[in-house]
């Protein structure tokens, strides 16, 4: 028998690097139905699909891919929805190479099936064509649930519980819903319209949305119970910026990635002065850190007109935590990488503005607690880099605003909320938590997975008791 011709992984069309690095439109432009079907044909429909083990929410990957192969895109999206309420988001931002695609059997010898691209394709197809029927809502239970925070975790809980017949209100501190999906991840990677359309879908199902509600300030958890809520889910994310604590860090021109990205994305500073919020547009920009947040910052800087955009990271290329696609995109767009480099000091002028950064070269020593080789400074390797904007993207911590104003909520030593791994139950009666405020900064899909588990547990609590 002749060997079946091998179909290569279907490319995702993209804006050319020199074009896209000057606009805020999405980088990958999306696949055609024909390419999607061809890509779907690459899937072997494994009896024991290991790809599913790699997906934190267990999407039926061969199931939806076989529907794509048959051109049944509407049925395919319904299949994905069974496990994942935000496929247009996950298809774009999941670190697939570590999750579903990282396990795919085809990937052992060739390139893995492009599961993320296919998920994105069916979600976008549905958003354009609106053919799938809205999921059925169970009969009203008369129970009320407050969901605090409208990031991926809170949105998942709200979507699950409204379908189970409960009344759900989402409380969001910002003036717009979506969490990191809206204030953090830039337009060129995740168009905001997608997030708002997901939220609009929830509102159509009956979820109430209260923006500008800072729980812990505007209203406390105990007051929510007094107002008649039967259960509360906390999904407030890890919104506390970390700084480097080195000299000169309060100079003008040094921003946390949270501030830089919030100004640019949520407040739309990239459309200033049409929008009123400004952001510092550096000529020579340095981003400290090498996660997704750092890639987003360094690439935003280019789009805002930077001549140079550099990533400075203390560890080596092997330890870069960002999604592979983002590192690749950043390099294509001209972001320069300085590995094994540690900032030691910021330099400024008499107006208090940043003019440069001093750093040290590092070498890799013995592995540390995390199993990664610890970088140690090389003596006498000091050097200086000129810059007028530095973005600090070295991670986030737990924002204490809500937790400190709430009695009876147990925290761990890093001030994240302690919650049961399987159910999301906290030490406070009637309160669940999940997402980044429990795990520390993680991923969209893990935050959604935690939301799903908590929603199931909340439903049990409300219908059959603990």
């Amino acid at each position, binding site marked *: 028998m002749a060997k079946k011709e091998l179909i290569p992984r279907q490319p995702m069309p993209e804006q050319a690097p020199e074009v896209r690095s000057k606009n805020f439109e999405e980088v990958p432009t999306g696949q055609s139905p024909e390419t999607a079907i061809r890509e779907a044909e690459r899937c072997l429909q494994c009896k024991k699909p290991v790809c599913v083990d790699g997906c934190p929410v267990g999407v039926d990957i061969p199931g939806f891919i076989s529907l794509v192969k048959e051109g049944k895109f509407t049925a395919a999206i319904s299949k994905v929805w069974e496990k994942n309420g935000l496929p247009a988001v996950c298809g774009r931002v999941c670190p697939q190479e570590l999750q579903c695609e990282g396990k795919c059997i085809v990937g052992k010898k060739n390139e893995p099936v492009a599961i993320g691209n296919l998920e994105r394709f069916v979600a976008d197809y549905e958003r354009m064509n609106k053919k799938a029927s809205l999921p059925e809502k169970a009969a009203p239970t008369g129970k009320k649930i407050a969901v605090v925070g409208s990031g991926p975790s809170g949105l998942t809980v709200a979507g699950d519980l409204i379908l189970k017949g409960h009344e759900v209100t989402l409380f969001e*501190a910002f003036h717009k819903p979506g969490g990191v999906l809206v204030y953090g991840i830039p337009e060129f990677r995740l168009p905001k319209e997608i997030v708002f359309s997901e939220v609009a879908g929830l509102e159509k199902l009956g979820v109430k949305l209260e923006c500008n509600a800072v729980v812990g300030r505007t209203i406390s958890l105990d007051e929510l119970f007094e107002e008649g809520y039967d259960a509360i889910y906390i999904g407030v994310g890890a919104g506390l910026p970390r700084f480097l604590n080195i000299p000169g860090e309060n100079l003008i021109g040094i921003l946390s990635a949270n501030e830089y990205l919030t100004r640019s994305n949520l407040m739309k500073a990239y459309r200033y002065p049409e929008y009123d919020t400004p952001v510092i547009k550096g000529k020579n920009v340095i981003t400290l850190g090498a996660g997704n947040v750092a890639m987003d910052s360094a690439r935003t800087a280019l789009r805002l007109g930077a001549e140079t955009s550099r990533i400075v990271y203390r560890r080596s290329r092997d330890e870069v935590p960002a999604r592979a696609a983002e590192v690749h995109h950043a390099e294509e767009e001209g972001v320069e990488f300085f590995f094994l480099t540690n900032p030691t000091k910021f330099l400024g002028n008499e107006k208090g503005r940043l003019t440069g950064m001093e750093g040290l070269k590092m070498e890799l020593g013995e592995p540390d607690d995390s199993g990664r080789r610890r970088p140690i400074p090389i003596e006498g390797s000091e050097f200086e880099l000129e810059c007028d904007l530095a973005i600090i993207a070295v991670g986030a911590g737990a924002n204490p605003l809500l937790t400190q104003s709430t009695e009876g909520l147990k925290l761990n030593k890093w001030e994240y909320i302690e919650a049961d791994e399987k159910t999301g139950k906290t030490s406070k009666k009637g309160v669940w938590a999940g997402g980044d405020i429990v795990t520390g900064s993680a991923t969209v899909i893990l935050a959604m997975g935690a939301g799903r588990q908590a929603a199931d547990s909340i439903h049990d609590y409300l219908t059959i008791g603990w």
Partner: protein
Amino acid sequence: MFKIIAREEMAEGTVILNEIDAPLIARKAKPGQFVILKANETGERIPLTMADTNPEKGTLTVIYMVVGKSTALFRDLKVGEGYQDIIGPLGAATHLEKVGKVVCVGGGTGVAVLHPITRGLKEVGNDITCIIGSRTKDLLIMEDLMKAASHDLRVCTDDGSYGHHGFVTDVMKEVLEEGGVNLVVGIGPVPMMKAVCKITKEFNVKTVVSLNPIMVDGTGMCGGCRVTVGGKTRFACVDGPEFDGHEVDFDELMLRLQAYTEEEKKSYNEHCNLVKQ
């Protein structure tokens, strides 16, 4: 929308008062706390202190000086119109405690920020001397309200057109020399607060100031509002806005407030040109 139910122009139209319907916030607000307001879809998030609140009526009052595009946009809002977004109450409330003799010093629109704090300090039983000032008589605000909130009100103008001729700090020095002062609260432009703290330090009197760095979220999430207090970086929106004035690095704050000067000037001029057309 958060509706404006009353509006007043003070200090020759350079300072505006808005009483706004915001029952949830009014119910919870305490002296010293602030809100963040956004006029419309394209607007900036602007922090303003609540000069007053009325929990029964469900309203809060802000008093602001028109200094740039956003405050000019606020000025143009009429009664019946409103703000798209208001977030609060934010910041730590003033620590209200009976300490004895308190001097409250306010300059410019700082007086609006000082008012609820002064009233709160009086309500817990302190003996309040209040000193307020402005460049000239017509720019003075809230004289009657400050009189009611204190036991002894002294007024100064830089040009001598009303009250004492000179700076609030001159009068404050005289009061400190009389002795017996346990606490000073100084709120106004950064140079004024710096000057107040320099003098009170000489007299070794504890001094509280309210800082106004540039803010975005107001919930401790961006770090844009960082100030150096006692050699440590603090976030004014959650750790403040009130701090021990003797520990504050005012020079750094003054510089950081200039971060967007060029953009602000451009926005304001464009806005004024548009309005003129």
